[in-house]
């Protein structure tokens, strides 16, 4: 397979995951905003922009943090080059680049949804239309992953696609946790105190984990439980531990296919043992922010190593 094609598959799935996660973030914020007074609602929208790292660009172009301005900025505003419409365009362009290594079903799932989304996002999105746009974004992810699962050859292309998915997903979960932790618990002394359960509920919703969490914890929401769940529980498909072990499988397969050990897998194993030997207590002792910062640095180093090992770029 060409290095450029591998790069296309990897980034197609990174952007797909990013678009899906961004839509979930908006969805969770919308839900929170609807159940809060105006001032608290504004806080929610502010935190969406902060989580996405768009504070500067947003404030340069907007006066306040009302919902419609925020979701339009995130979804489609040209002043925000990282808007969801652009992400989706990147999904499709990467899919076109990798077209010869993508099953027809997977390609059509991307193309069909892109046609609809691109049209929906060509005009400002009203509150009425927002639900449908966000639902389509999530559905697209599911359709593409479903098509991959059911129709793609398990060759190296498949593993590059999956690697992109899990690198991005781990980054997203870590970032959401980091941002909310920062906002809610500026110092360690608050850990263990009673929590604003609405905020944590939102965190769980942003990673599609609200139901799973409550199955496991019978309604008790506390910082320990959430960190345990989102960082260490390898049964939850968006936890850092799950993303590590999934990525590990893909990198192992790539090594096997290429009959050659990779730097990416070496870094991966380091990163995996960094998590594996930690307990929630140790994470809090280290500082959750410090822990997540280290995790994200390791995660992005693995991504870079994949690109180098498999000659993504000339």
């Amino acid at each position, binding site marked *: 397979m060409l*290095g*450029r*094609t591998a790069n296309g598959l990897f980034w197609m799935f990174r952007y797909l995951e990013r678009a899906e996660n961004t839509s979930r973030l908006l969805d969770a914020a919308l839900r929170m905003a609807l159940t809060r007074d105006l001032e608290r609602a504004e806080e929610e929208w502010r935190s969406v922009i902060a989580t996405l790292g768009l504070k500067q660009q947003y404030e340069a172009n907007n006066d306040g943090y009302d919902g419609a301005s925020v979701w339009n900025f995130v979804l489609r505003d040209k002043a925000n080059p990282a808007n969801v419409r652009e992400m989706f365009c990147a999904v499709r362009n990467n899919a*076109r*680049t990798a*077209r*010869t290594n993508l099953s027809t079903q997977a390609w059509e799932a991307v193309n069909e949804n892109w046609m609809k989304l691109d049209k929906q996002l060509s005009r400002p999105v009203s509150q009425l239309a927002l639900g449908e746009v966000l639902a389509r974004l999530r559905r697209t992810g599911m359709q593409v992953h479903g098509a991959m699962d059911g129709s793609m050859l398990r060759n190296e292309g498949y593993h590059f696609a999956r690697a992109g998915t899990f690198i991005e997903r781990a980054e997203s979960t870590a970032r959401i946790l980091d941002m909310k932790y920062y906002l809610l618990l500026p110092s360690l002394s608050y850990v263990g105190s009673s929590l604003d359960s609405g905020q944590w509920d939102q965190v769980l919703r942003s990673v599609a984990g609200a139901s799973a969490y409550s199955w496991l914890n019978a309604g008790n929401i506390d910082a320990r439980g959430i960190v345990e769940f989102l960082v260490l529980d390898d049964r939850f498909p968006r936890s850092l531990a799950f993303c590590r072990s999934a990525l590990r499988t893909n990198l192992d397969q790539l090594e096997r296919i290429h009959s050659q050990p990779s730097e990416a897998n070496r870094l991966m194993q380091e990163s995996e043992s960094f998590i594996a030997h930690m307990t929630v207590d140790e994470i809090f002792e280290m500082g959750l922010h410090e822990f997540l910062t280290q995790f994200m640095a390791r995660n992005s180093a693995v991504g870079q190593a994949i690109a180098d090992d498999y*000659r993504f770029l000339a």
Partner: protein
Amino acid sequence: MAGDQPGTPENFDEMHFAGGDIRPAYDAYCDWYQEQEPALLKRKNAEADESFRRTGITFNVYGEDEAEERLIPFDMVPRIITAAEWRKLTRGIEQRVSALNAFLYDLYHRQEIVRAGRLPERLLRNNDAWLPNMVGMTPPGGIYTHIVGIDLVRTGPDEFFVLEDNARTPSGVSYMLENRETMMAMFPDLFSKVAVEPVSNYPRRLARSLAACAPPKFDGSSGDKPTVAVLTPGIYNSAYFEHAFLADQMGAELVEGSDLRVVDGRVQMRCTRGFQPVDVLYRRVDDDYLDPLTFEPDSVLGVPGIMDVYRSGGITIANAPGTGVSDDKAIYSFMPEIVEFYTGEKPLLPNVQTWRCADTDSLGYVLDHLEELVVKEVHGSGGYGMLIGPTASKKEIKEFRAKLKADPENYIAQPTLSLSTCPIYTKAGLAPRHVDLRPYVLVSPNGIEITPGGLTRVALKKGSLVVNSSQGGGTKDTWVLKD
């Protein structure tokens, strides 16, 4: 049939006799058509568009700021050719394609045809596609044009003419294939009633045909097959869909210039496991951009040094650089002589009568008859830069006259043919529209293969003679009936 209008006596309608009866080729189809619910046909017609968009069969059009993707309209009434008609066409096409390859070989070697006084030397000098770098170089297998499209028009039951030769880079074959797929998905029962020659094996034939042209440096001793790759300018190219489609269907890599590099005297592609040699490159990048060391120095679409590798037998480039010389319309006007010179036979497929404006007598005639003629630029393509006398305004004719006088060598003229018509589906029922036909031909050392049918292009506007997709033309599925 509801809403149909039999062909006017002035032009040949492929479905109807002048009196309105159905011609034998369309008998079975029309029986089927009449049994269909009008509402069903209407719905199917709307679905076809959606299906093309979903599959991504689009071409890019560049406007002022943003690139836009458009569909080439598809008409769901097939264009039907009988087995006997096709056999006859096949012989003519084979003869013409053999002559084209012999001609190209001769042009880049001894130029016997020029020495024999049958072709003026100036036609080469004035030809933009002529590549001095190719002189004396013999491509692997001696083949210049591996993939050829011969554009045909019809004016009567037995009257087929060649309108244009596309030896350089004939495009559109993906439409031939997708049109058939779409038809079979829309009307599966139709194909159980009418026996049609399949076209779906084209990509496999193309792959085999290209693999048969491996360069001298390809080492087949270990039993490996030659590595074939398709070179595309990239996702923003108007024909990217076709490049990806063909690579996908052939199981070949789809490469861009940045993926390729000359390593150890071979052109190699950057793969996830390192550089691997390419044996046969089906390039969809123009000659000018192929090698920045030899041609356009700023090109980033090509591969620096590929021409040296080519000359030393390290790669096969299909079609060969310099092939476009025969697509020139001034050369076209000599095709009857060219066919006879290299095959020793009379051409089986005639040319359309052509006046070369470079000849003073012809120029005089053309200037006196602009209102009746079609005048084309010798290097033009895509329906641009031409004058269609009968539909042009007085002002357009006046302006064209000035251009023609200023540079007569740049033009040829042809009579306005009464092209055959074939019905298209409209809201009001079937309506005749003018069509042409581009059959696709593959050439390898093992011989010439022609896919039955080809791409039928149709002018969707009533009375229009322009079938180019860039100017509002559409396409049809083209059937060759089995005996």
